[in-house]
């Protein structure tokens, strides 16, 4: 135990150091993701709709921060003012207008974005929070699997027993010989064990009872995992091969495309939505070659859409739907609504889906068991402030828990553990 807590302490300390210096940049990262990432990359040269922002502070007129601040808020104004660099960029990018953020972002937010672009490339993507904390995830890394450890010990013990037994036999024989007696008859190992068991019936009985109970407990525990495609020890789950080698890492991680760009019904519907092929084609009409898989995988999208990249034309008769394998499966008797969790509950995608930005092949990162749902509902506070729907309830709850110290209005306090909230 001391070993573990030491490790977690170190981890916590490291994280503290990292985060205290990067709070602003973290906000900026989020803002960048929401507002800029569709067109720009933050720390590479890769040219999306707009230029990659690596080294942007060296390129723009000085003082760079102030200029970029102006530019982000209202680039049209800067262009109209006759700024030569602004006009150059405008013309270089085929006169594609950038969004005017004045009114959408305040000065602080813009500064945060600038700080983020200026700062070091995001080493660790935003960490998942929730019942499966990542501190725990680091525990087993580098350790020896307890199963192998047990097996090893068992093997060593077996060898030891064998060795001791032969030593005992030979010693006995030597003693017998020296005393002139006959050598002990060769009794087989199993016969000997049987003999021992015959003389120690009570002990054997107790042990076999313990074994039976352990076996039953094992079966009982295994029952909980029926239909759960998730390995608790390694925190790894269902990871099926997909018809297209689609990489979330390339799209959401490297290119920083917002999740909602593809999963665009997540705020409207119970389903986050698998993007329809025409959404893929928004980008892949132009991008026909991938960084890792070359043309083969993107060609599959083209064939699904009935798109001929040579002629640049669609032929609907040749289109055929893509059949993705669903990774996150809930049983039919559970009602889950994405929009409830994302819009009302203000949850991050990563809370349940893990850090998809680092996954090449999407993998189930949480067990999706009812215990897991409930644990989260017990810990997560409801975003009541500022939502008039909750006004009456908030007042009533404050009244109910009046005088109690440190009460959090978590989901379970407003009926979030009730059966019929998810089962109907």
């Amino acid at each position, binding site marked *: 135990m001391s070993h573990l807590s030491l490790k977690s302490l170190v981890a916590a300390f490291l994280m503290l150091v990292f985060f205290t210096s990067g709070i602003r940049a973290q906000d900026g990262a989020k803002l960048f993701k929401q507002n800029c990432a569709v067109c720009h990359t933050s720390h590479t040269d890769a040219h999306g709709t707009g230029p990659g922002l690596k080294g942007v502070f060296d390129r723009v007129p000085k003082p760079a921060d102030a200029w970029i601040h102006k530019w982000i808020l209202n680039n049209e104004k800067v262009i109209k003012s006759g700024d030569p660099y602004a006009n150059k960029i405008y013309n270089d990018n085929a006169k594609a207008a950038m969004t005017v953020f004045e009114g959408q972002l305040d000065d602080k937010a813009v500064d945060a974005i600038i700080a983020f672009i200026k700062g070091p490339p995001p080493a660790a993507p935003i960490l998942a929070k929730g019942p499966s904390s990542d501190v725990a995830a680091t525990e087993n890394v580098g350790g020896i699997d307890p199963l192998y450890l047990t097996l090893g010990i068992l093997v060593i013990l077996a060898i030891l027993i064998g060795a001791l037994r032969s030593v005992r036999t030979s010693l006995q024989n030597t003693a017998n010989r020296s005393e002139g007696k006959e050598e002990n008859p060769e009794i087989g190992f199993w016969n000997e064990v049987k003999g021992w068991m015959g003389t120690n019936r009570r002990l054997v009985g107790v042990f076999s009872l313990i074994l039976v109970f352990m076996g039953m407990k094992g079966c009982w525990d295994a029952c909980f995992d*029926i239909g759960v*495609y998730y390995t608790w020890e390694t925190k790894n789950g269902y990871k*099926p091969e997909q018809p297209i080698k689609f990489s979330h890492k390339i799209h959401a991680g490297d290119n920083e495309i917002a999740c909602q760009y593809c999963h665009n*019904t997540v705020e*409207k*519907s*119970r*389903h986050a*939505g*698998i*993007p*329809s*092929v*025409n*959404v893929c084609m928004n980008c892949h009409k132009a991008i026909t070659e991938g960084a890792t898989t070359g043309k083969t995988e993107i060609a599959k999208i083209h064939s*699904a*859409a*009935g798109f001929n990249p040579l002629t640049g034309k669609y032929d609907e008769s040749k*289109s055929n*739907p*893509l*059949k*993705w*394998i*669903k990774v996150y*499966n809930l*049983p*039919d*008797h559970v*009602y889950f*609504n994405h*929009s*409830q969790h994302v*819009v*009302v509950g203000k949850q991050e995608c990563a809370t349940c889906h893990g850090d998809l930005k680092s996954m090449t092949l999407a993998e189930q990162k949480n067990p999706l068991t009812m215990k897991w749902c409930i644990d989260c509902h017990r810990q997560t506070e409801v975003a009541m402030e*500022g*939502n*008039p*729907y*909750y*006004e*009456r*309830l908030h007042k*009533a*709850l404050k009244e*109910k828990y009046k005088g109690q110290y440190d009460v959090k209005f978590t989901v379970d306090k*407003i*009926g979030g553990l*009730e*059966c*019929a*909230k998810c*089962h*109907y």
Partner: protein
Amino acid sequence: MSMSKKYWRGLPELTESPEFVKQHQSEFAEPLPMDEFLNEEEAKSNGTSRRDFLKVMGFSTAAVALAACETPVNKAIPYLVKPEEVTPGVANFYASTFYDGHDYASVLVKTREGRPIKIEGNEMSGVSHGATSARVQASILGLYDGARLNGPWLKGSPTTWKNADDVIGKAVGSGTVRILTSTIISPSTKAVIAEFMAKYPNSEHVSYDAVSYSALINANKNVFGKSVVSSYDFSKAKTIVGVACDFLGTWLNSIEFAKQYSKGRKVSKENPVMSKHYSFESNMSLTGANADERYMVKPSELGKVIVALFNEVASATGNSKVSGEGKISNADAVKAISKSAKELVENKGRSIVVCGVNDEGVQTLVNGINKMLDNYGKTVDYVHHFNLKQGSDKEFIELISEMNSGKVGVLMTYNCNPVYTSPASLKFAAALKNVPTKVSFAQVLDETAQMADVVCPDNNFLESWGDANPKAGHFSLQQPTIHQIFSAPRYEGTRQFQDSLLKWAGVKSDYYTYLQAYWQNHIFPQQGKFLDFPSFWAHTLHDGVLKVVVAKETPATVMPKDSAGKPILSGVAAIINAITDSSKAEVADEKLIKAEENPTVADALPTPDYNKAASMATSVKSGQFELFIYEKVGMGNGNQSNNPWLMELPDPITKTTWDNYITMAPADVKEMGLHEMLRQDKIGSIATVTINGITENMPVLPQPGQAPGTIGLALGYGRNAETLKVANGVGKNAFQFLSVTNETIQQIASVTISKTEETHKFSATQIHHTIMGREEAILREVSLKEFKEKEKEEFNPSVTMATHEGKVPIAEVDLWDSFPRLNHKWGLTIDMTSCIGCAACVVACGVENNVAVVGKTEVGRTRDMYWLRIDRYYSSDMTKEKGNNEHLGTKQTYLDMETPSHNPKVTFQPLMCQHCNHAPCETVCPVLATSHSTEGLNMMTYNRCIGTRYCANNCPFKVRRFNWFNYNANVLFTDVNPSQNELGRMVLNPDVVVRSRGVMEKCSMCQQRLQAGKLVAKKAGAPIVDGSIKTACQQACPTNAILFGDVNDENSEIAKWRNNERNYFLLEELGVKPTVSYLMKVRNQEEPMLVEENKVEEKNEKSEEKHT
């Protein structure tokens, strides 16, 4: 009103019959069939030994274990190009129109991922007012009917459209064509037919309604010179007299009438006024059951009632009487006629007389009565008339003789099934054989389509474009809510009737284009709100309905076309001309109304011969037994009889499912020595019935309130079409018994009945008939007079409990702690004064919540799955007081109390889970599968339930339902359960779990709608708007009898209803604290309804106190 009630589970318990005592000891009512497996001898005979049984058991255990190891692979297949309006997981609603030739409703169709799953009423409609009926609710299943044809048929085998078109093209070119349709209310369809007739001048269009309203049309012609059906406004009527007219259930536009009727009967202390409703009828109809005063009259005397009423009203208003008044055998009815006539005259201009007898004479007199009562232009309106019924029996009969003479070369039948629906005496089927080419547009192989040479299956209404003009001045549009189901390349596909006709007529346009052109040319000019057609079209399509000021007849003329044969859209000039035209028409209509009000200009109207009408009306001969053929609320005219939801729907009156039967007065049943079906007996007799020379054997159901000497028989059963798996062979066809008198098809016939020794088992969802003295706890009623005069505590006393501290209100006595409802406290209240028992809610609940259909046998075993049922109670002549006074003894009193009165009063009580806040079911569940929410609802968790059924046992309301079988997969239910076939499964609501075998289920108060409504509010960041969440039953209710809301919201409508002096809870004395409450039924009658029992008891108590 005493509280000392004795409860028992059934009559056998009360009588302590030996069978009951024996059964009482055992756990199961019927022995389990274990013997078949375990008995050695049995085993030898049926080949299953105990050994085999154990082997099978072992194998299946292992198999189940293995099967559970398999990892299911779920695929997620996105759209190629996602339609902009579709969001997976979010429902879209489209306004459309339902009209099947029988019922009309403007509807909203709920679609999920492009497939319709539910129909709701469109509240913008001025004709259906957001209301629906059971038939409209169930109609969505017609889209997914497995019996639907997926391509054209030629001479009994599938063919291609090209072949079908060729055959028909040749036939229409050479012979005389007759198009036989049910009433068409679509103006553009009429124009399409006109196009066809213009191309083939030898053709004619004949309208024919399966349930005829010819007499009504003829009567209006006689009296007002207009061959139309008047519209009615029951909400303005203070006195309503209905003669054999089921205007709340099936007659004309019953959906609208129910809405209006209930509007005139919303009674409160502040406004204690309600309409008075008299009913004279032979059968117990839904409308009669709701009447304040109901009188039983033989079918042959119905005309005489109208004549008598005419004369009474005539003498009171100073008009001339008619001669030939006949004798009415029921003396009470005679008295009631003069009483109602007096009230009618008192409420001149605010009364209504309607009659459902399809006799020209009778209807002419009814018009005369309404005219004398000055009701025209007020409660009855022939200017803003209905177009819903246009069929002419005379033309239909003429068509048959034309067919017999061999003159007809091609007969096309659209939206009608005359082989099944025409009276046997007209011999339509024989006449049809004389027609060389018979074309049917039926969607299924029905009786007529089976005889047709070519079947050109029409689209379902949910796949079709269309329009409707149900009432003068009211239009509505129909739009497809799903792509044609049989459009995949492997099918030949269906084709809309209008498209077929346009094609044959050589118009080079599809019907959608034609429809738009028609609207642009004819309907767009009638309105002044929109200046350009595209925005007019978009708005009208969105609303689904259009009301124009003018009741202008839309002409069914051929439209101008360009050289390519496409209809020309009109220009601006044409619109302006048309607008001036329509203003002229408005003036003309006003003149008509004025002419009616002012007798001096009434010269233009024809002079009806009321004496001739009276002699026609009284000409029906009486017989030993007389038959009155009626429509059931669920079945209507039978065009939806293959719909299992409607087949299983318990008839509101008889509560019987899956059956057609003769209803007969209990006294007649006794006299004939047939099974009386007393004491909850389910076995009835079969009688041989001869009507118009046709003999059939039919089961007999004793029906309280049936006029003595009469029988009733419902239409819509006895289908003879093999592909209609649900309907085929259920019951007997009543259409064949219709008689033809005075060139109209009438529901009346004389009958001879003889007894057989055979019996028939009925499957009913309710087999006891009376409330048996438990009115106070379950069914509180009060007369209007008492309601007005007495205090709340007198007619609706609060329930108290005797404790050591004296009598305490039941709410204050509690075993358990109560939990605060911090956020919402849901509540549902049902106004029993408004409820008419129409069962629209029952079907809507089933559709919304994927409630399984179980079939006749299972209903017979009381295993129906309805989450919401409507209990129907008859009044009884015996009361406890009467029993006491006559010293009958407790036992005899209760036995007599079970027998309904000769002509009982009827009460309907919708009953679903009461969501008790101290729920008895929750405390007995061993696995906590049923528990309570912080919002006051009783939650049922199917995945937790292990099926002990303790909860159902402990439920005082008996609203829990157990899944005895896997109805969605078990072969026993393949024919009845729509969710077992690929197509029928599409109707399931994806937001509600489909329950499996072995779990309990019940009303969830439409939890999925609640959660959805809450989410909308949360996302919008606003409190829930009162009335924005509606349960399925509430949405379907045509009379606004059901109200759902948040009781915690002080300003909500439900909070007001809860404060109503009529509010009470069922079985409140149990202290279960239900979430559902009821508003007492108020009857508009003078006789007191309250029993003065309280005083007696109080006196006793006082005397006891004195003694102590």
